[in-house]
């Protein structure tokens, strides 16, 4: 059975370049020009976007109203009609959107440049980067959970499916620091720990909303024993390795700049007398 790991690097990158190559062929062969005109049009982007929205809506409805569809044995789950993650169905629809979006974007660059259209180009470029990294880059992302304690260093982490993975370093907890409100509820929780790799020791810390970073890994404080607070002898960290993080962040920044430009008020459409004409 083909799992999402099959699409990990370099398969995903080869696939994306193939998409670009197909677009290049369609655009440059005169016989295929009518097809290019269609797929690069705003109308097709409209259809692709509507199809993507419809798909997400259908999956969300299924998740909301058909609890049985959560089961991994359920036929809808198997074909990806009731899940968002690693869903072949959603991946196909997202790829259709990506293909149309890339064609539409490529056509924009053939038109005369206008500052008024800059935000649209940034918006599309950002969307392309985000779809690529979130759908096709997902296969390269790894997420593990590790329990660390004060007594011994740990180097075995676990995947979502409880599969053990040996890390290239070990982690040992130094201290958990809890800031509390007068009521006794936690305000902030911080874990201080050290990482050992090749006999070198790296002191680091993380707290909720501020992960630690070590080489390619981001380390998040996932949970701790709420009853013991600072007397805790262990805590749970989540380790995330995401090689597409910078691509996604770049896409997000492009879209945010475009969004800011969208918010600049456009010229009014009022009449010469001022205001919307009387009814």
């Amino acid at each position, binding site marked *: 059975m083909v799992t999402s790991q099959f699409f990990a690097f370099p398969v995903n990158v080869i696939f994306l370049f193939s998409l670009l190559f197909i677009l290049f062929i369609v655009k440059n062969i005169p016989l295929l020009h009518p097809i290019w005109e269609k797929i690069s049009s705003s109308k097709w982007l*409209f259809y692709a976007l509507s199809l993507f*929205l419809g798909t997400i809506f259908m999956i969300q409805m299924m998740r909301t109203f058909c*609890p049985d569809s959560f089961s991994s044995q359920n036929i809808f789950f198997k074909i990806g009609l009731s899940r968002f993650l690693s869903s072949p169905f959603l991946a196909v629809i997202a790829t259709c959107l990506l293909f149309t979006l890339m064609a539409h974007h490529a056509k924009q660059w053939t038109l005369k440049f206008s500052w008024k259209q800059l935000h649209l180009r940034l918006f599309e470029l950002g969307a392309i980067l985000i779809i690529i990294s*979130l759908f096709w880059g997902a296969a390269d992302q790894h997420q593990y959970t590790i329990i660390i304690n004060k007594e011994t260093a740990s180097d075995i982490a676990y995947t979502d499916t409880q599969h053990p993975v040996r890390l290239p370093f070990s982690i040992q907890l130094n201290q958990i620091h809890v800031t509390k409100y007068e009521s006794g509820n936690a305000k902030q929780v911080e874990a201080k720990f050290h990482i050992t790799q090749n006999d070198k020791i790296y002191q680091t810390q993380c707290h909720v*909303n501020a992960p630690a970073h070590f080489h390619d890994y981001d380390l998040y404080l996932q949970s701790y024993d709420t009853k013991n607070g600072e007397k805790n002898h262990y805590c749970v960290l989540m380790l995330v390795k995401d090689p597409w*993080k910078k691509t996604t962040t770049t896409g997000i920044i492009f879209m945010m700049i475009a*969004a800011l430009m969208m*918010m600049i008020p456009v010229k009014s459409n009022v009449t010469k007398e001022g*205001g*919307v004409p009387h009814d």
Partner: protein
Amino acid sequence: MINWENFIFFSVASIICWGIASVLSAITSKKSTIAILLALLGISIYATFIIGYWIFIDRPPLRTMGETRLWFSFFLAAAGVLIYMLWHYRFILSFTTLLSTLFIIINILKPEIHHKELMPALQSIWFIPHVVIYMISYAFLGASFLFAVYRLFNKNPYLSKATDNLVSIGTGAFTLGMFMGSLWAKEAWGVFWDWDPKETWALMTWLFYLIYLLHRKIFPNAHTRAMVLLIVAFLFLLICWFGVNYLPYPEKSLHLYN
């Protein structure tokens, strides 16, 4: 100290100012300075309450549904006066006052007041901009919904242009809010996107508004269909904002902080 007990006095004073400003702006064909000043006075009174309440609870009042409704009413009123000043749409103040009043009444009847504490997950620099920019976007998109309903009964083509302007600003703000949330999620949960019910409804709402903007570009004369799209989009927005809490399995949402 300003606490929730004082809300009714501040809100009634604001509604009176906005109400008079609405009537003045609707009956005068030229831009009414008195209407603008009155609307601004109402906003200032309302802002005084928000600031005072913020100081009283010692945290940003952005955590509960009631608190977000507080901001929605504020930004809707502010959006109304801004639009009136910029583009002189005569009925915008009436629309925004009506919707702001509705949400103020909901807050009076169902305040959803919570204690002063802010849990570790909400102790982030993203918390205030993420929620505030969303509330600004809801305000503009709420105003566009009112225009869309009005446009269904009024064939004035200028109303469609006005609606486009509001959707453009609202969608821009929505994009900012959504992606600020995405950057925050990466810091807090390790993923940019988690397909949490709230996130999924936000994505669907955003896509709906993008589809509306594309639809307006492709079919500029299909006004009625565009306005129906906009009304449905606002229903999605309402589900995203609070409706999602009433759907089955909301307890799985990472966005429940009550």
